[in-house]
Structure formats: structure tokens, C-alpha cells
């Protein structure tokens, strides 16, 4: 009798030991999106789309290492095992060796033909699989990619317009969907959106537009260390912060994105866990650098940077920001060693303005285009009003052109000299920027070649020295030299105080104590595979 009991107990224990990687429950998440992000391959709805409908269902050739919280997330091999510029190509041709044995959720194989088919899908208008909706989300992520071809079944060669040492970062945004699934569903991307097939750690079971997306573990995932522990993950669109908070407190979801700062004490009181971490986000003012703008004087730019009480602003946000000292935060590999220390020093700010010829009767007039809400904009109205008080306190005459988020985005498609800005009389803009990779952090925002419509250098900053530094970073194929070059770029930008740097968001999310094993990476993207539900 006892022997049998012992055997049963041992068997139970064995089962308990063997199965924790599986049957770990269902995670229910309240997203800020108002609809399910695009599921066909290239997600919409910004990086929240990539987070939930991108790297969950799909892989890129180059993935992000999201396993650590204490260092900045960096790229690592994904569907490609290695990559290198082709010798003698001046860094304009790259070979990507593809991972063998990778299967799509529909059981078909991933190979070089799939890569070419997917690049045609977003970059070749003439291809039958071309999808303008996916193209809209991805073309600007690979601005230098101009050619792609199969070398052999597991090798592709990609060609760039110019030498671009940072090209592997660009390839982290291109995700690979199954050509077989597209064929099977009548070559109709609308149908594929309801039954997508990728190679990622989660497969899609059901998409109910505007209601939810149901994902489940893909047991055949190629990276055995990242096979999801969860059985299922349910994603609910909940654009209203109060709804997300209530849903979490009522136990209808286990995790919410971006809780409102004023709801955090209540969430903590309800036993919820608030998780935050630094990540590549920058909330700043991008000034006009055209003739006649007060911002062309470095003393004015430095004065504005010294006028802002970031600690006070952080208090207003309930501690959910990092006080900014540049494009990236201190401790970031690209921070470098700037000599200009961005801090709160109103007396120094007043002195600089006086040196620049400004005073009580002649204040520098600044008018900033801001939004009422928007992706990554944090709490734009109270934050901007707070900064306005700070700036005016040292002698600026600050006003705003307030617009809705979509309008501000459209507004930014023209540079400061365009009709929209000229009509509004603005000389600065407040759009938060993702600084995930070197192109998005520096090239598109500070390089003189990237004035809209080509990029996002809205203020038409033209500094040959900075251009040279950025070009050098993009031509540095050695990794440590590349990091050093990027740190030099950053130090120079901070020393010139080219923007008014104010805050980095802390990426808050609230979750039930039942959620275990989550590591919040320093990234816009997160890895859901290690999570279990207690």
C-alpha cells in the first residue's frame, strides 16, 4: 500500500518537475491600441504592434536580445545565423547565412526564397504579393536596402545604396511571413490577417477584430531555449487607461500596458506589481535651426536645457521618467563623454540668455508644436505646461501650437520652412522619438541629408562636422569602433545642445502578482516566452 503511494508521489513529483515548461497557463494583456495590430507580418500601431503582433508571431533575420534588464537590448542572430559584408563590395553588399530547419506555423520551410519573397512583398510594387499596408510599416526601416537575391537555399545577398555598417539593425524590423499561407488563403492579405503564419514562438489561434487576439505556444519553435512556457496569451485592445486599470484590478486581465501615473498608488494598493525600466525613448523639443530662429544661438539652446526642473517634472509623473541628459540616457553605450552637463540651473540659464542679448524687454520667442496625446508622448499637456513655466521663469516667451496627434504627425512631414509650420509660426516641435538603433537615434534626426521628406530632421539642422561624425559611425564595421563613433556623435550633439532634452519614459506596465518570470528589457519590445502564470 505504502509502496504504491510512494510510487504515486514519485510519479507526481516527476510530472511536476518535467512539466513546468508547459501548461503554464494563460496570460491576458490589455494593450493601449484600439484595435488588434496588423498581423500579416509587418505590424502597424508603432512599436506596440511590433511588441504584440510582431516578435511574438514572427522572427527577423536579426532578432533582439530581450533577456536582460540591466543592459541595453542589442541585436542577435535570428533567422540568420551570421552576416557580414561581402569582401570587395565597399560595404554595400551583405551576405546573410540563414538558419536551417526553421518551420513556419503552417509546417512549411523557411529558406532563401522566402526571404526574397518577403522583401518583394514590401519593396517591389510589381510583385503579386506586394502589400501596401505592410510596405507602409516597413519601407522607412530599410532606407538603404536596394537589392536582394538568393545565393543558395540558405544564403541571401542584400545590397545597400551606400556603405552602411549599421544595416543589420535595419534588418531587425523586417519580419517573415509564410508564402504558402498566403497562397492557401487565395493570395488575400485580409484573410491572412485572420490566419497568419510566422516562425515566431507564438502562433495565432484566433483574431477577433477590435476585441482580442488569441495566441498559443508554438511547440516547434526553432530556438528551444525560447519555447514559450505559457499555454496561451490573449491580447485585448483597451485604448482607455481607466478601462485598463479597472480590468486589471477586477481580474479580467493579468497585465496592462501604460497605466496612468495617478492610478499607480491604487494599483499598488490592489496588490499589483508595477514594472518599469529605462528604454530608448526621448521626449524633447526639436528646434528650428533656420536663419532668424532664436535657437540658432547655442547660448539660447543651452539656456533652455538648463532652465528645466526635470526632478519636479518627474514628481509630476509619479517617478515614471528618467531625467534626460541627451539623446540617450547616462549608462547607454552611446552616451559618451559630453562636456555640457544638462541639469537644472536657472541662474546659469538666465546668464546665458543675457549674454545672448536677451532680457526682460527682449525675450526669445519660442512657439512649440505639441500634441494632446499620442504614441510615446507620455502626458503631453501637463508636461509641456510645466516646462513652459520653467522656460518663462528664466526669460523665455513660450507658447504652444496645440494639435491632435495625427495632425502633429502630418505637420512633421514638412520641415520647419514648410507651409504648415510657417502658417502656425512655430520654431520647435515636440514629438517623442524612439532611439532604438543608430539610424533612428541620430541619422534620420540630425543628419543634413535627412530633412523631410527624406527623414525627420524637421528643424533643418546643418552641421558638416556632425554629418561627418554620423557618416563615420555608419562606416565603422568594427563593433567597438562603431560604438565609440556613436558615443562621439552623441557627445558632440549634447555639447552643441542641438535639442532641448527633457525626459525618457520608463515604460511602465502593471501586472498581477500571478505573472512570474518576466524580465523587462531596456527596449520597446519584450520577450513573453519566459513568463509563467502562478
Amino acid at each position: 500500500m505504502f509502496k504504491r503511494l510512494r510510487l504515486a508521489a514519485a510519479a507526481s513529483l516527476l510530472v511536476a518537475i518535467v512539466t513546468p515548461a508547459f501548461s503554464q497557463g494563460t496570460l491576458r494583456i490589455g494593450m493601449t491600441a484600439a484595435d488588434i495590430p496588423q498581423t500579416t507580418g509587418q505590424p502597424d500601431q508603432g512599436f506596440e504592434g511590433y511588441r504584440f503582433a510582431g516578435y511574438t508571431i514572427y522572427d527577423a533575420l536579426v532578432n533582439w536580445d530581450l533577456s536582460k534588464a540591466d543592459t541595453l537590448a542589442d541585436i542577435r542572430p535570428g533567422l540568420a545565423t551570421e552576416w557580414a559584408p561581402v569582401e570587395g563590395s565597399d560595404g554595400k553588399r551583405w551576405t546573410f547565412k540563414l538558419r536551417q530547419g526553421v518551420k513556419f506555423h503552417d509546417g512549411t520551410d523557411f529558406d532563401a526564397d522566402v526571404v526574397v519573397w518577403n522583401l518583394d512583398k514590401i519593396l517591389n510594387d510589381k510583385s503579386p504579393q506586394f502589400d501596401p499596408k505592410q510596405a507602409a510599416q516597413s519601407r522607412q526601416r530599410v532606407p538603404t536596402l536596394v537589392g536582394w537575391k538568393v545565393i543558395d537555399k540558405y544564403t541571401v545577398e542584400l545590397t545597400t545604396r551606400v556603405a552602411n555598417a549599421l544595416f543589420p539593425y535595419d534588418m531587425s524590423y523586417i519580419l517573415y511571413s509564410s508564402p504558402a499561407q498566403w497562397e492557401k488563403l487565395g493570395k488575400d492579405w485580409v484573410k491572412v490577417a485572420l490566419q497568419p503564419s510566422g516562425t515566431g514562438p507564438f502562433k495565432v489561434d484566433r483574431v477577433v477584430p477590435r476585441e482580442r487576439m488569441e495566441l498559443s505556444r508554438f511547440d516547434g519553435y526553432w530556438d528551444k531555449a525560447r519555447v514559450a512556457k505559457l499555454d496561451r496569451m490573449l491580447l485585448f485592445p483597451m485604448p482607455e487607461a481607466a478601462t485598463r486599470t479597472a480590468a486589471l484590478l477586477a481580474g479580467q486581465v493579468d497585465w496592462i500596458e501604460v497605466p496612468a501615473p495617478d492610478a499607480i498608488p491604487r494599483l499598488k494598493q490592489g496588490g499589483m506589481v508595477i514594472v518599469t525600466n529605462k528604454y530608448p525613448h526621448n521626449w524633447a523639443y526639436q528646434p528650428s535651426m533656420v536663419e532668424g530662429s532664436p535657437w540658432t544661438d547655442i547660448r539660447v539652446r543651452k539656456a533652455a536645457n538648463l532652465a528645466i526642473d526635470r526632478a519636479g517634472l518627474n514628481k509630476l509623473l509619479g517617478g515614471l521618467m528618467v531625467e534626460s541628459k541627451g539623446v540617450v540616457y547616462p549608462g547607454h553605450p552611446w552616451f559618451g563623454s559630453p562636456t555640457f552637463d544638462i541639469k537644472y540651473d536657472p541662474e546659469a540659464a538666465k546668464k546665458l540668455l543675457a549674454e545672448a542679448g536677451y532680457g526682460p524687454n527682449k525675450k526669445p520667442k519660442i512657439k512649440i508644436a505639441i500634441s494632446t496625446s499620442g504614441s510615446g508622448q507620455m502626458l503631453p499637456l501637463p508636461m509641456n505646461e510645466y516646462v513652459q513655466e520653467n522656460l518663462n521663469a528664466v526669460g523665455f516667451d513660450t507658447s504652444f501650437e496645440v494639435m491632435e496627434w495625427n495632425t502633429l504627425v502630418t505637420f512633421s512631414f514638412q520641415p520647419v520652412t514648410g507651409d504648415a509650420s510657417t502658417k502656425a509660426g512655430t520654431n520647435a516641435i515636440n514629438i517623442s522619438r524612439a532611439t532604438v538603433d543608430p539610424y533612428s537615434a541620430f541619422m534620420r534626426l540630425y543628419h543634413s541629408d535627412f530633412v523631410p521628406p527624406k527623414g525627420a530632421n524637421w528643424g533643418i539642422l546643418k552641421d558638416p562636422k556632425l554629418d561627418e561624425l554620423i557618416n563615420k559611425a555608419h562606416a565603422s564595421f568594427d563593433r567597438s569602433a562603431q560604438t565609440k563613433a556613436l558615443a562621439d556623435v552623441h557627445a558632440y550633439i549634447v555639447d552643441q545642445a542641438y535639442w532641448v532634452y527633457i525626459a525618457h519614459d520608463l515604460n511602465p506596465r502593471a501586472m498581477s502578482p500571478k505573472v512570474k518570470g518576466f524580465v523587462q528589457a531596456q527596449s520597446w519590445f519584450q520577450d513573453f516566452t519566459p513568463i509563467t502564470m502562478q
Partner: protein
Amino acid sequence: MLLYALRRLIYLIPVAFGVSLLVFALVHLAPGDPISAIVPSDAPKELVDKLKEYYGFDKPLPVQYGRWLLVTLSGDFGTSIGTGRPVLQEVGSAFGNTIILAIGACLVAFSLAIVLGTAAAYAKSRIVDRLVTSIALVGVSVPHFWLAIVLVIVFSVELGWLPPMGLGPENATGWRLDWPHIKHMILPTIALSVIPLGVMTRTVRSTVKEILSMEFVTALHAKGMNDRQILLHVLKNAAPTCLAVMGLQAGNLIGGSILIETVFAWPGTGFLLNNAIFRRDLPILQGTTLVLAFFFMMLNLTVDVIQTFVDPRIKRG
């Protein structure tokens, strides 16, 4: 009667055309454009221009309107820029969800309003009248989105009795008439019914009170009718006025409440419109508004016809 209904139906055509023109003009007058809503904020203008060309937004506005009208007349309504799904499918599913809430809110608001309004009109006690009037005043004054949040805090967060969001349980698809789904619609229904409850209570109270002061009511008393019989006569006489207001209120509810549906993440027309406005999803905006306008007009027509049945004195030429 049939001729009257037919004529009213024919009137719908120019009204629908006017609505479509107005919606198209308003949507294009607003700043922002549909393509900027589907590309990332750092997308180069070259890409935006290319997509505008692809979707036909580079054409002059009259051409765009003409193309949209042709597609709509063929019964297609086009596809959503945001999701790529057919507009008719999007609007159809959202409309079905909104109708469920609207019917619930109508039932709650109208039945309570008839009881409360009649009680207040009949009340000899000033306290009852004052109480009902106060309820009606609160109903028309309280912001329903605020009430929605309060309801969620009390009944979902604190008491844990009712779910705070969604159409139904997490594994269900669509709406069904069972307790788990009804639980999900209780709070949004209450929040949505507050305004029509206030408006209707005031209307019923004043109409019944006015009728009670008419001579024919005195004549009915003199004939020896009991209170119940007289009440039926009074209600029948009050019906045309109340029906007209009910029609308008029901129309508003069918239009969907953007705020209530957003607070409760209820995937109806309000939720759909809210998303479409922020994404500048013109086909969805135009399609939804046109369908809603059509239903609003149909509802008014139905109310007019019912009024004629209820009160034969209403002659239609």
C-alpha cells in the same frame, strides 16, 4: 399609409446624399490625413506620397467623392485603410454590437421613464414629484462617461460583481443571450440609459400632467370610470408626443456612444468611429456615418408611422 411610407422612403435618397456630402466635406476639412495615420511618425514623405497615390488620395476631392459614391452605390462601401477589411463587414459587426446595448438601454430607460413620469404626474405628494424630477435632472445632467467610470470602480473593482469591459467572456465570439454575456452588458447599459431616462421621464411627466388637466379627463371621471381606465386613456393620448421623443433618443443610442463604448471597450459603432477618427480612416468614417444616418432616418419614419396608428387624429397628406 403605404403611399406615405413610400414617399418618405424616397425622401431618404436626397437626405442620404446630403449626409454623405457633408460627412465627406467635414472629414476632409479636418487637419491630418489618412495615410499619416497608417505609417509610423518618422515615415518619409516620399513613402506617404506613394501610398496616397496607391489609395487614390492624390486625386482632387470631387474625383475622390465621385469614386467613393460610385463604389457605395454598388453596395460595396470600399475597404478600411486601417485594417484592409471591407467597410460593410466592419460596420455590420460593430452595428450589431451597438444595437444590443441600445435595445437594453431603451428597455431600461423607457420603461422606467414611463413609470416614474406617470407617477410624478399623478402624485398628490409634492415629495414624489420632486424626487422624480430630481432623478430626471440628474439623468440629463450627469456626464455618462463619468458615471460609467464610477460604476466600474464600484461594481467591478471594489465589489467584483460585474466585468468592467468587453462584449463577453474571454473565450466567446460574438454576443449570445446567456448570463455570462448579459453580465458584460449590465454596466454599459445602465450608463447608456441615464440620459434617455432623464429626458423621457421629464417628457412623460409633463405630457401626462398636461393631459390630466384636460376637460375630457374630468368627463371620464364624471362618467364614473375608475382610475385604471382613465390612466389608459391618458397614456394613449400622451403616446404620440412620447413616441416622437423616444424615436430621437433611440436614434441617439443606435448611433452608439463613443465615450461609453470606449470606457467599456465595447466593440460597437462608437468604438469603431473613435478609432476611425484618430486614424483618419475615411472609408470607415464615411461608411459608418452613412449607415447610421440611414438607420436614424428609418427609425424616424417608423416612429411617424406608429404615431399615425396610435393617434388617428394625425392626418398625413
